[in-house]
C-alpha cells in the first residue's frame, strides 16, 4: 500500500435508463483523512458512494481497496471490507428499536440468539460517545424526530468499527451545535486513522473539517486533490457550476414595521407536549423566520398552523378568518402551502412523475370546463414551467421523482406551492440538501414571491439563512418563543445565545 | 343376452335391471360432456369418479369433464364451452339447479340432449332426463328412523342434534325440512343445529362445539357421511356415546361401522353418488336413441328420482357393495 491510499476508484461509469449518472469518475481516499465530495444537485455524489458501498454495481471502472482489486457485489461485501455508509435518505427500519437498528446485520449474538442487554449497552455507549445519551435505545426509531434519526444513522456507522466511513449530507438535518458535535466525532475517527468521505453543500463545513476536495460535475471528476482549507470559494463554486455564483441573500424590501392587515395571525397556539403560547403574525410580502435548536418544536408549530396536527388551544386566522383545528384542507383552501421537513415521507409520491407531484395540490385548477376533468396538457406545461423556474434537473417532468437526486426532489416540493393561489408559504428547512447555486436561486425566489405579496413563514436550522432571508425572526427554545424582532437587529451569536440560554447576553 | 351384471361390485340389488339386454353392446359413438361443482368434498368427488369410471367401460363413449366450479357463472360458461365443442349429450350436476336452467335450455335448443343430475332445473325444457336423489325424502327417512328408535326406547323430550352440510344450498334446506316434519309426527323437534361444509374437517369442528352446547344428547343426524368421519372423530374425542346417530348418503365407512355396531353410528339414509354412473349410462342410451331394457317404452324416461333408503345393521349387507369410498 503506497502513499496510504486506502481506496482507489478509477473510471467509474453508472448508467441509469436515460441518464449517465457517473461518466468516468476517479476518487482516491487515504486513511486518516477527510475527503470531501462537492458538486451540484444531481452531479452524481450519492450515486458514486452507492457504488462504493456496493449498493449499485458500476457498469464500468475499477475499485481497489487497500491495494487489492475488488468488486462489491452487494452491500454486505463492502461492509465486510470495513466500509460503513450513512446514506442521504435515511435508511433505518422504523419498526425496530434504536439498538436493533444500530446492530442490524451485525447483531451481537451467539448461534443466532441476540444478546439484547449487551447490545443495548453497546448501543447506549455509542450514543453516549456521540453525546446523545438522551436517545432511549429501546425506543422505536419511527418515533424519533428526523434529527434524532440522523444521529442513529451516524451511530450505526460508528458501531461498525469501519476503516472508511462515508457520510452523504449528514449535516443536512442537524442543527448548528449538532454539526460541531459531528465534527468532534469525525476528528476522533481521523485520529484513529479512519478515512472519512464527507458530502455537504455547505462550503463552510468543508473548510472546517475537510482535508481534500474532489469536485464532481455532470458525473465527471472536474478536480481532485484540492486542499480543502485553502482553495478559494469562487474557484470551488465555479468548478461545480461552471459559473460564478454569488452566495448572497437578496436585499430586503419589505418594511418590518409595516402595518398592513396581517395575512396570518396566530394567538396563544399550543400543542400538548410540544409547544405553548405561540403568538405570531405574518403580513403580505413579509418573510418571518423561526430559529431554534433541533427539537425546539418549530416543525410542530408549522404543522399545527397548517392543520396537520390538531392544536390544543389557540386560534389561527388567515386574512381575518379563523381556521378550524386539524384541517389541512381548510388551510390549503385559505391559501397556505407547506413544504414539510421530511420530503420523502411527507410530500412526495416517489413512484410518480415529477409533473404529477408538482400539480398534486392544485389539481382542481388543472381541469377543463367539466369539473374534475383533467387538462393534461395544461398540467404538463404548468409543471414544466414551475420546475424550469427552479432549475430542476433533469428537466424532464415525466421522470419518476425517485430517480431525482435529493436536492432536486426538494425543488419539486417547492414547485408544488408556486402554482396557484398560495398566499402563505410555510417552509420547513427549504434548502436542506440544496446545492450552492440552487440555494441562492431559492433565496431569490422566496424574496421575489414575498415581493409579489406572498407571506412566508420559514423554519431553518441554519441561523445565517434565517437571519439573511427573514424580515422578522422568532427564536424558539423548548416549545416557547423567547424572542421576537426584526432580523437586522440580530446576529448569529445573539441567536445562539437565545437558543441555548433563553436570553441574549 | 344375460341378466348377469358385467361389473358385479358396482351394481347392487336395485340396479341389476339397468344393464344387460344388449344395451351394453358397442354402438354409435357418443360424446358425453360432464359438468359438476368443484370436487371440494367427498360426495362430489365420488360423483365425478363414478361418472368417469362408468364412461371408461364403454368404448363408444368419449367422456369430457370440465373443471368443477362453485361459481354458477363459471359453470354456465363451462357448459357453454361444451356446447360450442359440439358434444352429443351433456350430464350436468349444477351447483344450483335454478341457475343452470337457462343454459340447459340453450343446449337442448342447440340439439344437445341434457341429463340433469341431482339438482333439478327449474324448467323441464332444460333437460331430456332428470335423475337425482330425494333430499326431502332423505331427511324424512332419517327423521322417521330416529323417531321410531326414540319412541321405542321411551325417551321423553329427547335432545336431538342435527349437523347440516352447507346451510345455504337448497338441498340442505330440503333435507332439514324432511327431517323436521318426520320428527314432528312423533312430537319431537331438533334442539341443536349446526352447519358444516360437507368436509371432514368442518364436520369435526362444528360437532366438537355442538357437543359442548348439548352436554347430553339422545340422537344426532348428520346430513353427509363425508363430513361424518369428522363428526365421529369429534364424538370419540369428546368421549361421548350416550346417543344414537344416523348418517346420510351411505359411504362404505359408515356401512362398516353400522355393521360392526360398536359405537353411536346406527344407520344411514342413502343418497348414492352412483347416480352419476347411472346418468352416464342414460346419457349413452339417449345418445344412441335406445331405451331402458326393462321398461316397455322405447325411450329413456324423463325423470327418475331415487329413493332414500335407510340402512341399518339388519340390511347393511345388502348395501355394502354400493357404499362409496368417501
Amino acid at each position, binding site marked *: 500500500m503506497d502513499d496510504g491510499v486506502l481506496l482507489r476508484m478509477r473510471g467509474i461509469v453508472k448508467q441509469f435508463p436515460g441518464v449517465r449518472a457517473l461518466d468516468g469518475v476517479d476518487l482516491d481516499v487515504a486513511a486518516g483523512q477527510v475527503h470531501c465530495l462537492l458538486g451540484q444537485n444531481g452531479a452524481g455524489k450519492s450515486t458514486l458512494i452507492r457504488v462504493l458501498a456496493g449498493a449499485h454495481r458500476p457498469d464500468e471502472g475499477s475499485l481497489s481497496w487497500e491495494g487489492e482489486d475488488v468488486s462489491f457485489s452487494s452491500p454486505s461485501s463492502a461492509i465486510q471490507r470495513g466500509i460503513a455508509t450513512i446514506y442521504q435518505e435515511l435508511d433505518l427500519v422504523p419498526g425496530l428499536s434504536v439498538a436493533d437498528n444500530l446492530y442490524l446485520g451485525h447483531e451481537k449474538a451467539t448461534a443466532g440468539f441476540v444478546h439484547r442487554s449487551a447490545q443495548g449497552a453497546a448501543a447506549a455507549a455509542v450514543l453516549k460517545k456521540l453525546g446523545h445519551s438522551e436517545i432511549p435505545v429501546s425506543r422505536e426509531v419511527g418515533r424519533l424526530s428526523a434529527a434524532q434519526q440522523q444521529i442513529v444513522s451516524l451511530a450505526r456507522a460508528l458501531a461498525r468499527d469501519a476503516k472508511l466511513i462515508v457520510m452523504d449530507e449528514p449535516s443536512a438535518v442537524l442543527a448548528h451545535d449538532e454539526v460541531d458535535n459531528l465534527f468532534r466525532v469525525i476528528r476522533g475517527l481521523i485520529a484513529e486513522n479512519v478515512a472519512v468521505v464527507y458530502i455537504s453543500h455547505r462550503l463552510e463545513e468543508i473548510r472546517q473539517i475537510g482535508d481534500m476536495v474532489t469536485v464532481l460535475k455532470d458525473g465527471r471528476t472536474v478536480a481532485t486533490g484540492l486542499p480543502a482549507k485553502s482553495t478559494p470559494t469562487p474557484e470551488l463554486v465555479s468548478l461545480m457550476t461552471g459559473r460564478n455564483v454569488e452566495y448572497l441573500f437578496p436585499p430586503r424590501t419589505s418594511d418590518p414595521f409595516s402595518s398592513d392587515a396581517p395575512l396570518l395571525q396566530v394567538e396563544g397556539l399550543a400543542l400538548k407536549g410540544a409547544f405553548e403560547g405561540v403568538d405570531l403574525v405574518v403580513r403580505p410580502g413579509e418573510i418571518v423566520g423561526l430559529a431554534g435548536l433541533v427539537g425546539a418544536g418549530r416543525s410542530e408549530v408549522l404543522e399545527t398552523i397548517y392543520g396537520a396536527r390538531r392544536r390544543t388551544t389557540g386560534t389561527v386566522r388567515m386574512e381575518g378568518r379563523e381556521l378550524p383545528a386539524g384541517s389541512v384542507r381548510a388551510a390549503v383552501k385559505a391559501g397556505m402551502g407547506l413544504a414539510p421537513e421530511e420530503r420523502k415521507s411527507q410530500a412526495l409520491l416517489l*413512484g410518480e412523475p415529477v409533473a404529477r407531484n408538482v400539480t398534486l395540490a392544485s389539481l382542481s385548477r388543472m381541469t377543463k370546463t367539466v369539473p374534475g376533468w383533467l387538462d393534461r396538457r395544461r398540467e404538463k406545461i404548468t409543471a414544466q414551467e414551475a420546475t424550469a423556474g427552479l432549475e430542476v434537473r433533469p428537466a424532464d417532468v415525466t421522470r419518476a421523482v425517485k430517480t431525482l437526486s435529493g436536492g432536486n426532489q426538494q425543488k419539486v416540493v417547492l414547485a408544488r406551492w408556486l402554482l396557484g393561489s398560495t398566499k402563505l408559504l410555510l417552509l420547513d428547512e427549504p434548502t436542506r440538501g440544496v446545492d450552492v447555486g440552487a440555494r441562492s436561486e431559492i433565496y431569490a425566489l422566496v424574496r421575489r*414571491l414575498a415581493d409579489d405579496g406572498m407571506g412566508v413563514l420559514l423554519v431553518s436550522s441554519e441561523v445565517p439563512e434565517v437571519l439573511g432571508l427573514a424580515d422578522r425572526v422568532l427564536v424558539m427554545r423548548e416549545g416557547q418563543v423567547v424572542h421576537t424582532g426584526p432580523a437586522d437587529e440580530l446576529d448569529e451569536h445573539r441567536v445562539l445565545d437565545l437558543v441555548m440560554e433563553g436570553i441574549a447576553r | 343376452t344375460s341378466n348377469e351384471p358385467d361389473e358385479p361390485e358396482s351394481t347392487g340389488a336395485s340396479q341389476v335391471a339397468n344393464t344387460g339386454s344388449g344395451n351394453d353392446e358397442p354402438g354409435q359413438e357418443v360424446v358425453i360432456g360432464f359438468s359438476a361443482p368443484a370436487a371440494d368434498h367427498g360426495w362430489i368427488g365420488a360423483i365425478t369418479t363414478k361418472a368417469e369410471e362408468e364412461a371408461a367401460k364403454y368404448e363408444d363413449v368419449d367422456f369430457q369433464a370440465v373443471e368443477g366450479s362453485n361459481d354458477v357463472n363459471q359453470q354456465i360458461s363451462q357448459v357453454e364451452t361444451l356446447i360450442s365443442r359440439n358434444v352429443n349429450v351433456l350430464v350436468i350436476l349444477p351447483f344450483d339447479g335454478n341457475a343452470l336452467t*337457462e343454459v340447459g335450455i340453450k343446449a337442448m335448443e342447440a340439439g344437445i340432449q341434457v341429463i340433469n343430475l341431482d339438482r333439478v332445473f327449474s324448467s323441464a325444457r332444460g333437460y331430456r332426463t332428470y335423475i337425482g336423489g330425494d333430499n326431502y325424502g332423505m331427511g324424512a327417512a332419517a327423521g322417521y328412523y330416529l323417531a321410531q328408535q326414540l319412541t321405542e326406547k321411551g325417551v321423553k323430550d329427547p335432545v336431538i342434534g342435527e349437523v347440516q352440510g352447507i346451510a345455504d344450498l337448497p338441498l340442505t334446506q330440503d333435507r332439514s325440512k324432511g327431517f323436521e316434519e318426520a320428527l314432528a309426527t312423533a312430537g319431537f323437534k331438533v334442539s341443536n343445529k349446526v352447519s358444516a361444509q360437507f368436509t371432514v374437517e368442518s364436520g369435526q369442528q362444528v360437532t366438537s362445539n355442538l357437543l359442548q352446547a348439548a352436554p347430553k344428547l339422545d340422537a344426532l343426524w348428520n346430513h353427509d357421511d363425508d363430513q361424518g368421519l369428522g363428526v365421529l372423530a369429534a364424538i370419540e374425542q369428546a368421549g361421548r356415546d350416550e346417543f344414537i346417530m344416523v348418517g346420510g348418503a351411505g359411504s362404505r365407512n359408515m356401512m362398516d361401522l353400522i355393521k360392526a355396531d360398536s359405537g353411536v353410528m346406527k344407520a344411514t339414509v342413502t343418497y348414492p353418488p352412483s347416480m352419476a354412473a347411472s346418468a352416464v349410462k342414460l346419457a349413452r342410451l339417449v345418445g344412441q336413441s335406445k331405451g331402458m331394457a326393462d321398461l316397455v317404452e322405447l325411450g329413456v324416461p324423463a325423470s327418475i328420482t331415487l329413493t332414500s333408503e335407510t340402512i341399518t345393521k339388519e340390511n347393511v349387507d345388502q348395501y355394502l357393495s354400493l357404499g362409496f369410498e368417501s
Partner: protein
Amino acid sequence: MSVSTAPPAVSTQRPGVLARMRGTEVRNLGLVAVLAVLIVIGAVTSENFLTTDNLENILVSSSVIGVVTIGMTFVIIGGGIDLSVGAIVALASVWATTLATQSYGPWMMALCAILVGAGAGLANGLLIAYGRLVPFIVTLAMMVSARGLAARLADNRTQLVNEQGIKDLAKTDVLGIPLMVIILAVVAALGWILLNRTTFGRRTFAIGGNTEAARLAGIDTRLNTALLYVLSGTCCGIAAVMLLARTTTGSSTHGNLYELDAIAAVIIGGTLLSGGRGTLIGSILGVLVFITISNIFILNNLATETQNIAKGLIIVGAVLLQRRANRDTT
C-alpha cells in the same frame, strides 16, 4: 403563477414510444404477450378454440368478474383492499330478486341491485375512512355479514328471476356483440377515464402512493377513500345485475370467491398490492388470462385435479414470461 420566466428546458433526446410509456403500461405489454402465448397454445391444442363462439364465450365469461375487478383496481390503487365483493354481489342479487322488488319491474331490480351494492360499499368506506379501521378487517366483516344477510333474505333458497327483461340481457347482442361484453367494455372505459383523466383518479393514485403526502397537499383523503369503496360496491351491484341475467337467479351463494379472483387479476395485471400504482387495462388483461387458461383446459378435456396442478404452474410461468417481456421492451 409567479414562477420565473426561464423557458422550460426541452428534454434533449426524443425518447422512443416504448420508453415514453409509463412503467406500468409497459408492463401490460408483458401480459399481452402472455395472452398471445395462451392463444397460440389454445389454437394449437384445440380446433374449437379459435371459433367465434368460443372467443365470445371467453369474453362473456370474463364480463361479470371483469366488472368486479374494475372496482377492485381502484380500491387497491388507493391503498386498500376489498374482500367483500363476492358477498356484495350475492346480497345485491338476492335483494333484487325478492318478490317485493321484482314486482316493480326490471329497471327497478337493476337499480335496487346497484343501490344495494353502493350502500354496502358506503358502509365499508365510512368505517375505513372515517372510522379509521383496517380495510382488510372491515371488508372481511362485510363479507361475512353480507353473505349472512343474503342467506337470511333468501331464506337459504335460490330466488328465481321472473322478469323476462332481466333474463334477456344475457341473450341480447348489439351489433353482433353480446350485451354482457358491451357492459364490461363500457364500465371499463368509464373506469379508465375516471382513473386517468380526472382529479379523482389522480388523487386515488396519490393516496395509495403516500397518504400522508396527499393529506398534506390538501386532499380530502377520507372522502376520497370512502368513495373508492362506494365505487367498488357499485361495480358489484352492476355485476349482480349481469349475474341475474346470466343465471336467472338470485342466491346467497353467488359471487363465490370473487374477492380472490378479482384481487388475483388486479395483481397479475401489475397493480401493486400496497397501492399507488396500477392500470385498469392490466386488470382486465389479468381477468382474460385466468379465464382463457380455464377455457383451454376445458377444451382439452383435462381432469379437474390435473387442471389445477397445471393452472398453478401456468400462473407462475405467465408471470415469469411477463417479466421477461418487460425487460426486453425497456
